[in-house]
């Protein structure tokens, strides 16, 4: 399926956008297009979902390991002094 020119422009703008939620940096004509084109709107949502998945995938360092690593680093710095 060949994409319509406006869809190509929209995908390009979405991938570069700093504000996928509010689309504040997207030209008005493309914003209007997103509101009526199911495919472009779906593309935008999947970009948001992808980012959210990575945002939600975080990892915590337990306190003891944190303390140990910091202590090791400081001891090494003292030795090097």
């Amino acid at each position, binding site marked *: *399926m060949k994409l319509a020119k406006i869809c190509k422009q929209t995908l390009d703008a979405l991938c570069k956008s700093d504000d996928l939620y509010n689309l504040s940096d997207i030209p008005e004509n493309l914003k209007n297009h997103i509101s009526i084109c199911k495919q472009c709107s779906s593309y935008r949502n999947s970009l948001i979902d992808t980012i959210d998945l*990575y945002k939600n995938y975080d990892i915590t360092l337990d306190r003891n390991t944190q303390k140990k690593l910091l202590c090791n680093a400081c001891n090494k710095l003292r030795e090097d002094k």
Partner: protein
Amino acid sequence: MKQIDEEQELIKAAKKGDINAFNKLIKNYTQMIYSFSFKVCRNEEKAKSTLQDTLINVYKSLKTFDGKSKFSTWLYKVVTNNCLMLRRSEKTGRFISVDDIQIDSDSDHFISSAVDISSKETLNTELKEKLDEAIKKLPLKYRLVFILRDVEGLSIEETKNILNLSVPVIKSRLHRARNFLRNELKEYYEAS
């Protein structure tokens, strides 16, 4: 305000060689450094090792922190450099190139997005593996831009200063990274 003043005092003292002040200063940032390192290298042991190296490098290069940027932004720069050094020293990774990925390839871009992702959602192991696998395929230069901008939420100006890149290059890399990851995860969206 008091907290910022206190941080400034600790930076001043640490710059003069006060290791206790450094300990106090950096304590609040260890989780951030660890988390960012993990997001870049996708490996807990490597993230711990990067954290350890970063702590030492931060102390050693603290003299170069001029206070023009936020301390946290400067820290991102140091951690990023450590991640890049680690990557260079490994020299084993084989990434596929995303340079040829075209945005206008075909209808593959149009997949349904029916995933309900709330901030409280706990990602299952299978999905975590998929996310790791996808981002590991992304060359580091694209990965860093994606993580700094989209995951850590840094501004384009901050990202520019951390990576020493121009705004158009950052935008272009972000464009490719987002599109690449989204395509890598399309099976997940389709299955949902």
